[in-house]
């Protein structure tokens, strides 16, 4: 099995100093129990400055990692050194089954506890607890307890549905208030207004809608002044569509209903999706075409990895992997870099336009690939049409992936636009935050690529040009 390469290690290292520090640990003398199993896991214990050695485990499949050291850098020098030794191949790894602490990590990854790059900070030792000892005993199968638990879950779900509907009624009243005051002036008080209704929706157990409202002021402020009032009409209108659709969800197509419920804030555990037999699974060769890291108002960092399925003729061609990590963890990047390619099976969350997915199985690890990505020969106008089609199916789409061929970047004043070169007036304004990084593309007569459209600005993630690949990272 091809493991993590030295180039990959260099790419994921947070800085040069980390590589330098890791280099010093690349020697067998400082490690105990260097081992590997046949499913791509490697592990070992590295003696640090403390009394107990640090436990380090990594996955050769997706470069996930975990270390018990207190470092604030991700990955830490121990994780880098472990992968380094394995990649160099000079130090032997014993073939073994993973011990309990390695299995625990694997299990937690599958259950989705926010470990996008595999970084977790675990207490060095679990606190001893009599209560836990008692509850551990009680976890043995008891049909009556299971029935009680199921009834409790049902009750909880009904209560939540009631709470959400009540929250939606409040949302409607809030929307009416905004319209009464006139949406031309909404931007001026958006921050305060949105915060109060967002809090109400959190109380109503609709965190997805709350998050939308929390993000709304920034979305509007990021636009030029003349566009803010229209954006307010659009965004607030979408909120009502969501509310009204939720009230009528019984009559919706099941996939659209799934989209809707996710948008409001219902979640499906990773393990549940991975185990769902009816879930849409797509195998193929996937290229990473975008990697985005943004801090949300709730102080979680959202890590998006956008994938494109090479050579696809049917089914979803684009996918996004989402992970959320606390800002305080220090992790700023996901596990994958734009341009990498992997062979994998993805399982998609149910949707009228499937996009969000998880990696169910990886046949080959993600590796840097310099080959040209073959994109469908569809110009920008075609990409815009596809977006509109998606919008008719899922009216509350915020971000939509677009791939395009034969476009070019053009300038009007301080603004940049992605324009079609094949005739027609299709042109998308680009994000102002990208003006500097995209500027060198002004010299290119034609580019193919991939980006994200949010209705107002196009974020270019990846472009193929006569001078090679351009990436936004």
């Amino acid at each position, binding site marked *: 099995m091809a493991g993590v390469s030295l180039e990959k290690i*260099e*790419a994921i290292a947070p*800085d*040069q*100093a980390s590589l*330098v*520090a890791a*280099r*010093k640990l690349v020697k067998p003398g400082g490690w105990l129990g260097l081992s590997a199993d046949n499913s791509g896991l490697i592990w070992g214990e590295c003696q640090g400055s403390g009394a107990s050695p640090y436990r380090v485990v990594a996955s050769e499949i997706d470069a996930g990692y975990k270390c018990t050291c207190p470092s604030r850098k991700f990955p830490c020098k121990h994780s880098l050194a472990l992968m380094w030794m394995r990649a160099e191949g000079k130090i032997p790894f014993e073939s073994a089954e993973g011990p309990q602490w390695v299995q625990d990590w694997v299990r937690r990854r599958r259950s989705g506890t926010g470990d996008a790059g595999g970084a977790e900070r675990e207490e060095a030792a679990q606190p001893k607890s009599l209560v836990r000892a008692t509850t551990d005993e009680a976890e043995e199968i008891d049909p009556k307890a299971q029935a009680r638990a199921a009834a409790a879950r049902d009750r909880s779900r009904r209560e939540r549905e009631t709470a959400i509907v009540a929250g939606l009624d409040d949302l*409607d009243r809030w*929307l*009416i208030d905004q*319209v*009464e*005051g*006139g*949406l*031309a002036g909404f931007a001026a008080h958006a921050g305060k207004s949105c915060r109060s209704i967002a809090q109400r929706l959190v109380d109503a157990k609709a965190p997805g809608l709350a998050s939308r409202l929390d993000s709304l002021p920034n979305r509007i402020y990021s636009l030029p002044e003349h566009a803010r*009032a*229209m954006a307010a*009409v*659009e*965004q*607030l*209108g*979408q909120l*009502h*569509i969501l509310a*009204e659709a939720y009230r009528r969800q019984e009559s919706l197509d099941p996939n659209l209903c799934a989209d809707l419920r996710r948008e409001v804030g219902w979640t499906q555990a990773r393990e549940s999706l991975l185990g769902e037999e009816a879930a849409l699974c797509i195998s193929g060769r996937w290229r990473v075409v975008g990697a985005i890291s943004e801090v949300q108002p709730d102080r979680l960092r959202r890590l998006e990895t956008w994938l494109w399925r090479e050579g696809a003729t049917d089914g979803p061609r684009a996918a996004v992997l989402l992970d959320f990590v606390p800002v305080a963890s220090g992790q700023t990047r996901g596990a994958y870099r734009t341009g990498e390619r992997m062979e994998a099976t993805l399982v998609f969350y149910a949707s009228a336009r499937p996009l969000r997915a998880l990696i169910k199985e990886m046949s080959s690890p993600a590796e840097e690939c*310099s080959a040209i990505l073959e994109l469908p020969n569809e110009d920008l106008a075609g990409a*815009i049409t596809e977006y*509109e089609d998606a*919008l008719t199916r899922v*009216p509350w789409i915020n971000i939509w992936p677009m791939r395009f061929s034969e476009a070019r970047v*053009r*300038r*009007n004043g301080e603004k940049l*636009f992605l*324009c079609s070169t094949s005739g027609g*007036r*299709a*042109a*998308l*304004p680009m994000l102002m935050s990208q003006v*500097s*990084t995209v*500027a*060198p*593309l*002004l*010299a290119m007569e034609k580019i193919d690529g991939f980006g994200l459209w949010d*209705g*107002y600005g196009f974020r270019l993630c990846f472009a193929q040009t006569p*001078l*090679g690949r*351009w990436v936004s990272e």
Partner: protein
Amino acid sequence: MGERVNADELKSQVLPVLLGGTRHETGEQLLAPGTDREHAVLNALSLTGQVLRFTPPSSPNVFAVESWPRDERRIVPDRLRPHIFRLLDKCTEDSARALALTLEKQKLRPHPFDLPKLDGFIERYAERLGTTAQYWVQRETPAQQSRGYFEADELNADNWTESPLRARAKFLKALRNQDPEAGRKLMQKSWGAENPDSRVQLLSAFQIGLSAEDKPFLESIEKDRAPRVRAIVQRLHAAIAGTTADNPALAACMQRIQRSQSGLLKRRSALKLELPATVKEHETNRWIQEQFADVTVGDLSHAYEMSETELVEAAEKDNNLLFALALMASRENRFALLDGITDELPDAWGRMSGLSGDEDLRDDADELVHWAKALIKPKKWLPEIPFPAWSWLHRQMEGPLPAGIMREILASQIWSEQLDQEKKGPSLEIIQVICALCPRELRVVVRTQLEPLEAERKHKGSMLLEILDELESLT
């Protein structure tokens, strides 16, 4: 809205109500008979919002025409690009300069897509990095203020004024060598548009091929606003006339030099420079530089009726006067004379390194080698705290030192002490400047010497050496 409405009607009739507010206007167009008002308003909001979402974004009718210049240089290979990023992240200016100089020498340029990420580096070294880099740093400059984008070897009399000062000075010197009259005419044409610093630098080129035919032009600029320009003009006049009598700068210097006789069997002149009492010790070098800025060795030698060698001998007991002579000899490219001076004053370059200003633009590679060999005598003297002095040296050399000098530095006691692990050890800055100054053939020696050091200290220097090796191996 009991009847069907189309998108245009929503935009023209409903949207204004939504924007203006329904508090003061009933918004009849939103209502249909028998419907709940609030429900109707919300429906209108969501329908209008969706209409707007489906409205294509407005795009301009015209776009700027891009005029990126043609750039003949090769682009840095992809495999080196991440290494260059890592090097330039928190490296010293010496490392950045070494990289820029090598890119220039190898006729390479950064990848255009990397320009935004290397903004600071590109800004500082654009004129060495090719026309694309020059265009990049000027991309937001108004057209009337921007300069053209040229490689140094593309300069001619027509585009001369549009290139950076360094390139223009070099071009003018070369032209004065070939055709002094053409050089003078070029200067006359652009003189009025030059700023004072440029005028000083360019006028210095007039020493080459100076003749009586230059007199009218010099007379026309005698009353220039810049004092340095006026002083240089007077000096040039004096040189043309073959007399130093009218050089006030020379007269002022001679007033500060005391002459005496020494020796019993053979009387020899001794010269000593008297500094004004108001000049503090740390101001000495600067004062000397300014005092002797418009005087030549020849002027002094003529004034004291001594040969230049005798002049140096007469000053041998006075380090300050020797330093003045070293400054003049260096400025005039009098390498043999400079060599004799630094035999007596080996720390001359250490004293020079503390002075600001790159007045001596020395572009000829051979000149630089001769100058370095005359000035740097590692066996006699090396700075105890090396970093500022060596950094200055790298700026002057615009590249590595001659191998002979570097070999002596690497074998010196002072450098060995720097490498001593038990002492504090060399700083990141010192290691990087030594790596920058090291010629290609001695990099293996430096690598060996750095090997025992901690990784944190040496990694930038090592990275620099690797990148330079890679760049220089590209054919």
